[in-house]
């Protein structure tokens, strides 16, 4: 051990993590990041590279084969699948991203408020959410959209509110744990107000589990929104959306056309990619927590 010095030995404390980077990617994690970055790039600039307009009928053939003109073939009414997938990426991803952000803001805001502002408020919010949670998500989505009609804002708000349930539970539990720590007591004794305590004492200590949660919720809302679109209640044709595309081209599967599989593969790869990152992240955090506990 040539690097070893006496000073180094004095400084070491087993509990101190030192200046360790928050998170180092494993191979699978890197694959996940690669996939997600690829789709983000596609969502940002993909439409500029699309060979055709997504609504144009470029071929007379339905379920046209892959060819030089139509790289991934055409769909049931002869539109270019590649162009539609590229355009759909933007819509599918931004919808679910916005819905997840909404779920976060509402769920965490209410969760922290419930945990920190006394038993009565906690009970009221918690019981409302319990009632909300008792309805299966897809059914709730169906009912809301059937009642209000399908538009993009309605979709975002519905998905956001549905997924805020889980976040509310997690945020509330985290805040309840952190709230009893002495540093929060110390802040209270100092005379800090609730918003400051939430922002400076609670939130920084809840960030890590919430980041992992963000990835998972994002996957859920991608699947939820695509699912609604597949059922015909989400994004409405002719707008290009991956869920819509799967539904439209389902019939082609009998004839051996891959038209429905391309958007399905897109959804699958994006969700798998996000999951790989989340897994990697939580596995490492779990390891650290296990080490701290021993």
């Amino acid at each position, binding site marked *: 051990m040539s690097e*070893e010095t006496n000073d180094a*030995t004095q400084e070491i404390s087993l509990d101190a993590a030192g200046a360790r980077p928050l998170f180092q990617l494993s191979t699978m994690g890197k694959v996940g990041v690669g996939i997600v970055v690829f789709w983000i790039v596609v969502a940002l600039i993909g439409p500029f590279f699309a060979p055709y307009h997504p609504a144009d009928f470029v071929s007379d053939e339905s379920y046209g084969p892959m060819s030089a003109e139509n790289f991934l073939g055409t769909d049931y009414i002869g539109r270019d699948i590649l162009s539609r997938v590229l355009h759909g990426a933007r819509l599918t991803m931004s919808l679910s991203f916005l819905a997840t952000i909404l779920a976060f803001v509402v769920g965490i805001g209410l969760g922290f408020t419930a945990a920190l502002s006394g038993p009565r408020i906690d009970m009221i919010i918690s019981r409302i959410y319990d009632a909300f949670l008792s309805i299966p998500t897809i059914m709730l989505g169906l009912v809301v959209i059937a009642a209000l009609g399908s538009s993009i804002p309605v979709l975002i708000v519905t998905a956001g509110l549905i997924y805020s349930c889980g976040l509310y539970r997690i945020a509330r539990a985290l805040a309840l744990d952190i709230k009893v720590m*002495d540093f929060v007591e*110390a802040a209270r004794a100092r005379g800090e107000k609730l918003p400051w305590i939430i922002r*400076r004492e609670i939130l920084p200590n809840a960030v890590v589990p919430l980041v992992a949660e963000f990835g998972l919720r994002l996957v859920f809302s991608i699947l939820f929104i695509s699912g609604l679109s597949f059922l015909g209640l989400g994004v409405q044709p002719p707008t290009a959306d991956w869920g819509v595309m799967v539904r439209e081209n389902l019939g082609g599967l009998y004839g051996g056309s891959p038209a429905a599989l391309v958007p399905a593969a897109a959804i699958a790869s994006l969700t798998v990619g996000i999951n790989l990152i989340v897994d990697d992240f939580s596995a490492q955090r779990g390891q650290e927590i296990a080490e701290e506990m021993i």
Partner: protein
Amino acid sequence: MENLLQVEHLRVEAKVGPKRFAAIVKDVSFSVARGEVLALIGESGSGKTTIALSALGYSRPGCRIAGGRVILEGADVLTLDRETLRKLRGRRISYLAQSAAATFNPSLTIGEQVTESTVLHGVMDQETANARAVDLYRQLDLPDPESLGRRYPHQVSGGQLQRLMAAMALCSGPDLMVLDEPTTALDVTTQIEVLRAFKDIIRDQGTAAIYVTHDLAVVAQIADRILVLRGGDIVEMGDTAQILNNPAHQYTRKLMAAIRPPPAVGGDGGAVAGEEHLEPPVIRVKDVTAGYGRITNGKPAATVLYDIDTEVDRRSVVGVIGESGCGKSTLARVIAGLLPPAEGELLLDDHDLEGRLEDRSLEELQRVQIVFQMADVALNPRQRIGDILGRPLELYHGLKGAKRDKRVAELLAMVELPESFSIRYPEELSGGQKQRINLARALAADPDVILADEVTSALDTIVGAAVIDLLKGLRERLGVSYMFISHDLSTVASFADRIVVLYAGRIVEDGTTGNILGLPSHPYTQLLLSSVPELRQGWLEDVMRSRSALAGIAREVESTDTGCPFYPRCPVAIDGVCETTPVPYREPVAGHRIACHREIDELVAFEREL
């Protein structure tokens, strides 16, 4: 004697970076014979636990055993495969951790847990193991040995649980037992009972033991030989008598010097008359009753403090002592506003101080600061030291930018830490350094009173002594008052002007430090005083002998609404009076109160006997 365990040239390394290791234990060799107790002592970070764990062939995550041999009766433990090692740990070596409360699973019965490992490793069948457990309970002086196994961990006291952990470790009849600070978290009164039980059972079972602790006075009672460690190296090794009476190394002498001698008992400390009040006290607590849960008729569902009446003078130190659960911390929380009292009032400089935090002005909040016991959890791990110290400056004094940074540097200097610490996070600091930051945060407010709750209890002797010196210095320089809460009487006695003794939520005695240490005093104060371990061999036996006069050390504490709460443990209790009649306050001299039914003369006579 034949050596049971032989450790040769042990070297343990900790990971300090990618592919970088530094030695935390360097070339340590020692041996333990059958039936011998070897103590490993040193400050935190000296590698004592790491060495003790290596006897089980175990190293903590992030560490690796890099060299040496650990030979248990001819076989090198370090070369064994996992399965053999597992069997070895279950049958022949057992480990006893610091916190019994964390070791026991609250949802399984005590009996299941005590016998689990023994049965699992096939040492004996369940019935034999149960019988052996009952036997061990009896040897450990536990109540109701026959039925104890069917109870759950929360149904017994902390000291009993600690002893049960010894039963768990001994159930399989191991050859070697590793005890890691088993009495550090206990009150002095409980520590005695646990120490005595450990000592007896180790002797009766003929088990060898490695006893890890930082407390030399404890070691003096139980160890045959002592190994003094520092920074992963052996400083000195020898027989207990030699180390205590004739330490060869300077560092050993330093360790011994850091132990405060137990307060001198006896004498006529009561001669000091009550001092005159030139200024009003900074804090007055008037007839405060407080607790948790819904309040009905001025009494909370779980009352912790009853009719507390005390005060803190300007520039003075009031020590509050008592066993855990007596309400010391609750008193600090009430004064800090974290727990509004159910009844009674608080005064700050003769002005009413509201019970609820929300009703106090910023200035009132600034003048009363609380320092929490556990620096580990009192500092937000996600804030830099500069922000932790800077926040009170901003909030109370409106300091910003460069002015704030300058003051932060001054505060760090005040607690003897370098300015560069302001960019560090709490986890990069040692326990003692964190406690200094914890204190500096209270000082940042520029307070009149600091409520210090067990601020030295989690620190080892040398670091704790340094923190106390720091507090003393700050009091001289800044003129702050302290309410110093501790279960460690010797620390309080070395520091406080007045002492308040709490028992089961009531003040049983208060007065100047001289009053409290001198005669007469409350029987409970006597019990506390005589429980502080002395740095000499044989103290435990002596004190146990005189204890036989003090009936029952560890009876359950009961909070009674009538009569004296100490009655069930009191050696001079008067049957038919003490448990039913409200206790009068005796006042031997002005300013010294003793809550007891006995006359002062009777108390003096009784205490002289001891």
